[in-house]
């Protein structure tokens, strides 16, 4: 409405072109208003419940019923005349959650811990299956017999004889100290 009036008053080509552009864009926006996906327009003031922002940029409820509107009118008078229910209704018009509701803790952490442990368990099962069916057989150096021969060879060549390996072997008695 206002755009058409402006175009009429100014009458210049530029204004008319600008007015046309604005009306078409507003027409486009109007047709977009009834689409299925409700994308939040982040260029407009938003509402959010945050401890550190007690009064958000806009009221919670945008669309007011006639009952809400009459309550808003009553709000202009003395507040002592409002009942507790009316005061609560006014609060809920402007805000979604109260501070205690905002701050309440949830049991989400239990789900998270359970999920993490479940995934770790699943991975453990996969690894067990892998060692059984995927990994090749162990090298022969892991056999007990080979290991025994290896230890004897290490003792024979006196590996770390002062404070380490061979130092633990009693060469006279032929046993570990």
């Amino acid at each position, binding site marked *: 409405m206002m755009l058409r009036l402006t175009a009429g008053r100014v009458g210049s080509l530029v204004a008319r072109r600008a007015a046309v552009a604005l009306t078409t864009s507003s027409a486009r926006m109007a047709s977009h208003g009834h689409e299925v996906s409700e994308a939040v327009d982040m260029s407009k003031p938003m509402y959010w419940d945050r401890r550190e922002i007690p009064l958000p940029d806009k009221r919670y409820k945008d669309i007011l019923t006639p009952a809400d509107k009459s309550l808003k009118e009553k709000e202009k008078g003395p*507040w*002592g005349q*409002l009942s507790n229910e009316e005061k609560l209704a006014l*609060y809920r018009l402007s805000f979604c959650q109260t501070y*205690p509701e905002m701050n309440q803790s949830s049991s989400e952490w239990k789900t998270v811990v359970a999920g993490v442990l479940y995934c770790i368990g699943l991975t453990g099962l996969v690894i067990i299956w892998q060692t059984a069916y995927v990994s090749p057989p162990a090298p022969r150096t892991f056999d007990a017999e080979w290991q025994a021969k290896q230890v004897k060879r290490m003792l024979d060549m006196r590996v770390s004889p002062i404070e380490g390996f061979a130092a633990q072997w009693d060469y006279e008695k032929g046993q570990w100290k």
Partner: protein
Amino acid sequence: MFRAAVRLSVSGVRSITRTQPGCQALLASRGYSHGKQETDEEFDARWVTYFNKSDIDAWELRKGMNTLIGYDLVPEPKIVEAALKACRRLNDLASAIRILEAVKDKAGPHKDIYPYLIQELKPTLEELGISTPEELGIDKV
């Protein structure tokens, strides 16, 4: 004495050295080593003047409250009183109740600050007809 016991931010520690609840409003302490530091009284006076503007608009109220709540302090009763009166001029009861909730939340674990605040604000609350969140039953989930 409390400094060792209570783990608070730098500006918060200053408040705890004065243990009586009357002195909660602090200087908005900035990390400047130069320049004159604003005293508590100057801080309070500045904020009371801000909210006492007779033709304050809704944006200014919101901006003021959100800024004030952003500071590491609980506002003095006289600042909250000025803010509540500003709500009355703007015919906004919901914001008045929200302000009371916010200052209670600001006090955090210090449970004795909010009752003191309400006690100091009682005349204003009665004069303007503002119910506290407790009276409306929204202080519990």
